[in-house]
């Protein structure tokens, strides 16, 4: 028998050994296949042969049984029973029978192979003997009926062993051995291949992870101990990583290439509220950040590569850009433009109803060279509005200050000239007194306005004697009303309470309301100031029959700097802050100002505050 091959060739790491292990694997598999096939073929052949032998033997036994039965019949016919044992014995020997006898079924045998005894033939013999022909469990059993003269039948029983064993028995040993050898070869072959399969399997897994993205961005390396394929794979992966890093670095180191900047810088630029635009020497946009795209009213992809003149029509701005580009201008140039709506290009400043004011500044990007311009775009609309409001307020306040100052000067002069005249002296002192108070009020107004602007308007509560307050009001406005021939009437309850409030601010609010009433009522009109207590509140109604306010503007008039769109209002000076201040003061006290008005009919402003100090906020609400 063959000895199993003792093959250590499959366990090396060198390339020759690895190639060797592959050939060994192939050879082993081949040999195994051949051996196993041969063994199978031989086994089949032996099996078929054994079967046919078995069948032949059965055939033989049947034939022998027939012949014996004829011979036995003849013996009975000639009444030669003594010859039966010899006959049967011969037959048994010749045909290798295990059983060969004649008997009546169920009785003692009449004659039997291997026994010299001859039994007696019973006088009564059964009629029919049943035939049997069975082949089972490796033996054949036949029962053949034999006629005995005219007396009936007896049974001839014959049995023989039928073996289907394979021969030669040497095959029984050989075949398993050959099969074993085959299997061992197969195992050796598998062992040789399995190492290589393991490496490929791991690489395959790494590839799969990389493809599905489950490797967390790590390069798909494998353990080098698996073999040289693993090492080669790792080298490949490392090379790719190096190449990737190099490309990224290259890109980052070359900004402006195709308009791209490294992603951190780009994100930082997009987080700015000022727009940044970079132009080349032809005034084409090389780069624009998010804010710039928003201000210029275009998507970033459209902007890059387009001529800036498509989006900016202001000639000063374009001139500034060209100046910087040509290198003639080395410093920053700023131009304020305005932007009309969302569709329009950036137009020149000065348009009356501009929606926004944008400040464009152009700077050269490399001072020594020409060619690249950086433009910043800033939304300065709110600052401009604030500036304008402040300016107009200051202008109006100074105007308001002038009048009382003039009066004071006039009457002091008069007193100086005519110091002896007591009438003039009394009048002069009264006027100086009330005008000074007026000056005080105006200054307080200005201070409050600046507090509102800064968001720091506060009230300081104290006890306010309303009777005194209203006396002052009457005095302060009598002259103004008389000058304008407006009838001013105070309708006050007999007893005015003492309220907890900030006297200065509350007085200011009332002054604003009354002042407005007088201002916006034409000559010959009427202004009524009616005060009342109701449900824990103190209400003052200032009623005029002046120009009135349109319904749509009832809420708007309280807005900061808002002046009604009525042409008659525009002619009168006003800061647009009086009502804002009055309402803030009312709300801080926990009260409010409400308005009822009809255009051309007149207005009624109602200022209400709680009598006790409840509600309200310590600081300005709006």
């Amino acid at each position, binding site marked *: 028998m063959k000895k199993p091959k003792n093959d250590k060739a499959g366990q090396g790491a060198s390339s020759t050994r690895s190639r060797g292990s592959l050939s060994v694997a192939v050879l082993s598999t081949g040999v195994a296949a051949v051996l196993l096939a041969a063994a199978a073929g031989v086994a089949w052949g032996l099996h078929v042969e054994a079967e046919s032998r078995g069948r032949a033997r059965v055939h033989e036994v049947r034939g022998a049984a027939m012949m014996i039965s004829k011979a036995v019949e003849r013996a009975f016919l000639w009444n030669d029973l003594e010859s039966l044992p010899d006959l049967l014995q011969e037959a048994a020997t010749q045909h290798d029978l295990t059983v060969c006898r004649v008997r009546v079924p169920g009785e003692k045998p009449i004659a039997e192979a291997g026994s010299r005894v001859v039994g007696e033939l019973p006088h009564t013999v059964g009629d029919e003997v049943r035939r049997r022909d069975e082949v089972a469990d490796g033996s054949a059993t036949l029962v053949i009926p034999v006629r005995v003269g005219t007396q009936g039948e007896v049974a001839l029983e014959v049995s023989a062993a039928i073996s289907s064993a394979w021969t030669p028995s040497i095959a029984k040993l050989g075949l398993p051995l050959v099969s074993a050898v085959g299997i061992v070869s197969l195992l050796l072959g598998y062992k040789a291949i399995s190492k290589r399969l393991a490496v490929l399997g791991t690489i395959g897994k790494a590839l799969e992870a990389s493809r599905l993205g489950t490797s967390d961005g790590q390069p798909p390396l494998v353990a080098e101990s698996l073999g040289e394929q693993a090492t080669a794979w790792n080298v490949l992966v490392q090379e790719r990583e190096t190449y990737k890093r190099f490309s990224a670095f290259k890109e980052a180191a070359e900004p402006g290439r195709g308009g791209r900047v490294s992603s951190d810088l780009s994100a930082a630029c997009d987080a700015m509220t000022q727009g940044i635009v970079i132009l080349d020497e032809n005034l084409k946009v090389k780069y624009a950040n998010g804010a710039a795209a928003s201000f210029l009213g275009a998507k970033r992809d459209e902007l890059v590569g387009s001529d800036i003149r498509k989006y900016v029509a202001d000639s000063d701005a374009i001139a500034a850009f060209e100046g910087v580009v040509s290198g003639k201008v080395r410093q920053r140039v700023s131009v304020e433009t305005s932007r009309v709506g*969302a569709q329009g290009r950036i137009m020149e400043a000065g348009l009356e109803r501009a929606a926004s004011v944008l400040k464009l500044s152009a700077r050269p990007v490399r001072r020594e060279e020409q060619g690249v311009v950086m433009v910043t775009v800033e939304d300065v609309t709110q600052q401009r509005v604030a500036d304008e409001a402040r300016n107009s307020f200051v202008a109006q306040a100074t105007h308001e200050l002038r009048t009382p100052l003039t009066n004071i000067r006039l009457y002091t002069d008069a007193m100086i000239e005519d110091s002896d005249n007591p009438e003039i002296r009394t009048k002069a002192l009264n006027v100086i007194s009330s005008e000074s108070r007026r000056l005080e009020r105006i200054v307080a107004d200005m201070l409050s306005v600046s507090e509102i602007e800064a968001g720091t308007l506060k009230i300081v509560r104290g006890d306010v004697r309303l009777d005194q307050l209203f006396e002052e009001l009457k005095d302060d406005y009598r002259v103004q009303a008389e000058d304008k021939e407006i009838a001013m009437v105070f309708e006050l309850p007999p007893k005015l309470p003492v309220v907890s409030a900030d006297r200065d601010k509350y007085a200011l609010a009332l002054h604003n309301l009354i002042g407005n009433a007088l201002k916006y009522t034409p000559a010959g009109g009427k202004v009524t100031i009616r005060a009342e207590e109701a449900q824990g509140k103190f209400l003052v109604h200032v009623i005029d029959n002046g120009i009135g306010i349109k319904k749509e503007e009832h809420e708007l008039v309280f807005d900061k700097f808002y002046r009604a769109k009525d042409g008659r209002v525009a002619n009168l000076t006003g800061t647009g802050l009086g009502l804002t201040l009055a309402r803030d003061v009312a709300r801080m006290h926990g009260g409010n100002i409400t308005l009822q008005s009809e255009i051309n009919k007149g207005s009624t402003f109602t200022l209400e505050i709680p009598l006790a100090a409840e509600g309200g906020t310590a600081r300005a609400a709006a």
Partner: protein
Amino acid sequence: MDIDEQRFGAVTVLKPVGSLALDEVAQFKSRLADAMVRALGRVAVDASAISYVDSKALEVLVEASDQLAQSGRALRLCGVNELLREVLDLTELAERFELYEDASAAARSFL
């Protein structure tokens, strides 16, 4: 639902009054978009009169803020009451907006 519009200088403040949910959200969205375009992004939303918001309303606010984020800004909200503040905290959306106490504070922040 009424949406009041007030100008604080160059700043437009939108003040929705009542419940901001379902169909009303579409109206609010278009008013907001309009104001953003007209005022070049100088917009604030006064939330002091909002009684209820649903997720659609929040979506609209977040979208507006995201759009402003492209130019380095965020949507300014003012007058946010306790309930709305809680909603913003729970949905972790509070950081997406700039919150101010009242409309003037929000308007001042544009200077």
